[in-house]
């Protein structure tokens, strides 16, 4: 599903706030498609998590995935970097094209997929190592040993953490506050220069100030990265996302599965959603 129009490119009719923020650098009229998801279904054993999901994800935009618990939001983004491969019994149907190439095609290396498409999880999960090593670990494993100090600094700056940690890089990553730990995880993700960042409830365990700094960071990150965020917090989606996909639970013959109900600009979803199920969810009348 493409937001608004049903073509591979969308007009940039993002929220006025967004336009105001980017006034200095006018946005191009069209966007490249990063992910072209076609009729994607995911099952865990006999349970269908998501069913027949089709949507496009666009370069350098923030796409939010919202919906009630159990609607398959996390499953969906985990399909985008083959994270579900690690779950026993998980099975995928349909296609996930990444720049036109089937992510689940023969000969595609899931490790390389996850290098290009990084992920940040709900709870900050730094390694019990120094701040420096947390960030340097990924590049080292991937053989990016040249200029490692510069790479660590660049990643920490990119995650808006450098100024806070530059004098204590040898201290444990676990010594940081929750919000700093989450930014450290973002730094760790971007240190290996992915193109896409998937964020699964990245601020749900954080206090409002740390949440605010993560949201600000997301705005900065989208200049270089394509972001897909799963969030329970609708106002967070409204604040940060350019596009919003609403997933819901569909019940057929007593079997429940997550379906994509609506996908459009965030402004449209939060001012005049096209589908009554979306309207009921965003206005809190769901269920």
């Amino acid at each position: 599903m493409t937001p608004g129009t049903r073509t591979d490119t969308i007009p940039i009719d993002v929220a006025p706030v967004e336009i105001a923020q980017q006034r200095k650098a006018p946005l191009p009229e069209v966007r490249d498609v990063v992910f072209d998801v076609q009729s994607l279904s995911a099952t865990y054993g006999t349970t269908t998590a998501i069913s027949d999901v089709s949507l496009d994800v666009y370069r350098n935009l923030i796409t939010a995935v919202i919906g009630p618990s159990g609607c398959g939001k996390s499953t969906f983004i985990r399909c985008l970097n083959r994270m579900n491969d690690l779950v026993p019994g998980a099975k995928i149907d349909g296609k996930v094209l990444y720049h036109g190439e089937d992510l689940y095609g023969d000969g595609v290396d899931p490790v390389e997929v996850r290098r290009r498409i990084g992920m940040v999880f709900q709870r900050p999960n730094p390694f019990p190592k120094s701040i420096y090593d947390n960030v340097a670990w990924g590049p080292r494993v991937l053989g990016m040993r040249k200029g490692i100090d510069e790479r660590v600094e660049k990643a920490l700056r990119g995650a808006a953490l450098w100024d806070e940690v530059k004098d204590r890089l040898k201290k444990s990553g676990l010594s940081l506050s929750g919000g700093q730990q989450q930014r450290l995880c973002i730094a760790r993700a971007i240190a290996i220069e992915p193109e896409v960042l998937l964020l699964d409830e990245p601020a749900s365990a954080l206090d409002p100030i740390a949440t605010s700094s993560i949201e600000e960071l997301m705005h900065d990150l989208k200049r270089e990265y394509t972001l897909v965020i799963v969030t329970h917090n609708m106002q967070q989606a409204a604040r940060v996302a350019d596009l919003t996909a609403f997933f819901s639970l569909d019940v057929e013959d007593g079997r429940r599965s997550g379906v994509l109900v609506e996908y459009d600009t965030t402004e449209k979803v939060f001012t005049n959603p096209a589908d009554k199920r979306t309207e009921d969810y965003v206005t809190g009348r769901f269920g």
Partner: protein
Amino acid sequence: MRTTFQDELDLLEATLQEEGALVLRALRGAINALEQRDHELADEVISFDDDVDARYVQIEEGIQSLLARQTPVASDLRLVLAILHVNLHLERMADYCVTIAKLSKLVPEVDPGPRFVEGFEEMGSRCEEMIRVALDSFGDRDLEGAEGLVDLDELIDRANRRVVERILELGEDPAMREYGLRMVVVSRALERIGDHAVDIGEQTAYLLTAEFREFTDASHPQPREA
């Protein structure tokens, strides 16, 4: 279901309808005061404006609180924004009623003939009808009713033009001229009340369609379809 939030929205809308009923009473009082040259009634209309203002402030504060705490979206957001605008239009209408009441006290003791009284009675009745239609179509979410306000407004505009023509025929007598001058303002106030009713209709259309549009555009007039 967010019952507290829904209760607050319902209360805001009920207060808005209450404010509308007060505006109708103020308008009838102002027209009667003008027709019957009843200064006491005019004073009542003037002080009655405080009641309208109290509802206006109550709605403003309610909206401020709702926006801060409940962050309404989608149709809820449109309803809150529409109430914000309709509230302002009703308050302005009540101000015009005060203007009419004040002017009714200032007219000199002249007899311009029954046609003036008839003219203002016609305009006043049409304004009352428009306010009712505006409030009902907002409450009933009735797009057709809201769009019909344009036709009703046209009738007021015509009545306004007739009143102005009659004023021009009042002659050279200074007292008559003063009367005429004041009545131009009264006629204009009634005509503006009609315009505000149309604006309320536009808010109903926004609430229902999520599109801001003016029913009529004076700067780009388009011929209406037959």
